[in-house]
């Protein structure tokens, strides 16, 4: 029993004791609590930020994936370049009239007259692309329309580049037809001149369209590749070969 009493005595004395902490004790503790609060807040801000960014990414991704099929199904984007194309054509027709003169000046004076005449008509009637052909002859225009009905119409839904090339092909054919009407023999030199001019037109059109009036260095470099030239030339020859007989008969019938 003695140890218990002894311990009881010690315990009683010690338990009555209190020691006042130093004055800055609370300030120290407060600082620690504040710093942990900040860390906690930063943590929560970090997690909220992370969650928000994930939600944002998901939203953007879902929008992107939802829009993709819609883009394919709507033909709106295909139609808009068509409208631009017609405007471009008017501009190019104007340019054509200016560019055409020096080229044709090297040729016979009679053809020069005709070409300028046609070019002027292009500028006047540029609203509708088939009007120049009417100026030549109704039959030819009809024939052209038939040809275009077969070939050019479906192309309108395709890229602008192709449609413009088609138009050029038709213009060249019309030009050849005019020369033929005047009974002048179509030499290879004439044909080459016409083709070169048409090629230049197409290149210019491409340059303007790609960069909305500003000439692009990359496009210029691509021109060097001469891929377009070849394909265009091939196309013209193909078109000439395929349609020449048809046009010829049409003209012959008119003459009759």
């Amino acid at each position, binding site marked *: 029993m003695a*140890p218990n009493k002894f*311990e009881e005595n010690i315990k009683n004395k*010690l338990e009555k004791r209190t020691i006042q902490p130093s004055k800055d004790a609370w300030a120290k*503790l407060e600082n620690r*609590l504040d710093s942990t*609060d900040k860390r906690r807040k930063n943590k929560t801000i970090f997690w909220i930020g992370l969650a928000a960014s994930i939600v944002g990414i998901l939203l953007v991704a879902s929008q992107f994936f939802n829009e993709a099929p819609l883009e394919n199904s709507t033909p709106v984007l295909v139609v808009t370049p068509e409208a631009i194309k017609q405007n471009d054509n008017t501009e190019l027709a104007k340019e054509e009239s200016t560019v055409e003169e020096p080229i044709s000046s090297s040729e016979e004076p009679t053809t020069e007259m005709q070409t300028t005449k046609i070019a002027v008509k292009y500028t006047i009637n540029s609203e509708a692309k088939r009007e120049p052909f009417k100026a030549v002859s109704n039959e030819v225009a009809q024939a052209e329309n038939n040809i275009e009905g077969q070939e050019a119409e479906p192309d309108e839904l395709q890229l602008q580049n192709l449609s413009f090339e088609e138009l050029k092909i038709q213009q060249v054919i019309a030009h050849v037809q005019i020369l033929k009407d005047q009974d002048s023999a179509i030499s290879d030199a004439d044909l080459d001149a016409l083709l070169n001019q048409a090629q230049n037109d197409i290149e210019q059109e491409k340059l303007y369209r790609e960069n909305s009036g500003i000439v692009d260095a990359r496009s210029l470099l691509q021109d060097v590749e001469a891929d377009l030239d070849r394909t265009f030339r091939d196309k013209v020859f193909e078109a000439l070969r395929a349609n020449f007989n048809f046009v010829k008969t049409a003209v012959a019938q008119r003459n009759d």
Partner: protein
Amino acid sequence: MKPLLKVIQFYKNENTLLEKVAKNNREAQHVLFQMHAPKMLSVCRYYIKDIQNAEEVMLNGFFKVFSNLKGFRAEGSFEGWIRKIMVRECLSFLRQQKQVEFILEEVGFKNDYANNIQSDIDVAQIQQLIDELPEGYKMVFIMYAIEGYKHHEIADMLNITEGTSKSQLFKARNLLQQKINKLNKTSYGTK
């Protein structure tokens, strides 16, 4: 009835205070600190001789109290809960400071309790005697004699066997008694 109502009022106040503390209300935390810090510093001082270290350990304890207040269940007394946290903090501090040795050698001393003399010794002297005890003796003695832990609890907390706890207590008692007797003899001698 009045004292009972007062007690109820007190508990209500303590509960609302604790609720505020749990919501990280700095003012409430300060009030709680002022209420319990002097007693808890005294408890820490039992184990840790250096008062600055004792205070540092007490602040660590309070920091844990504020951080883990949600873990406090209103089953026992709040002071008892804080005190347990403080004791654990002190023990881990002592372990960090140095390897605590539980001396197993028998200190040759016969039981010679002089209960009547103890009243002459003041708290500072008792604390000094406790401070002089070897670390192992001191821990077990305070935990058993003052905190009221059982031997198996002490064994768990200090990671020792129950037998070691018992023997450490026995040796601590003997050594403490020896020291008290010595103190008394010198004081008588001076008379």
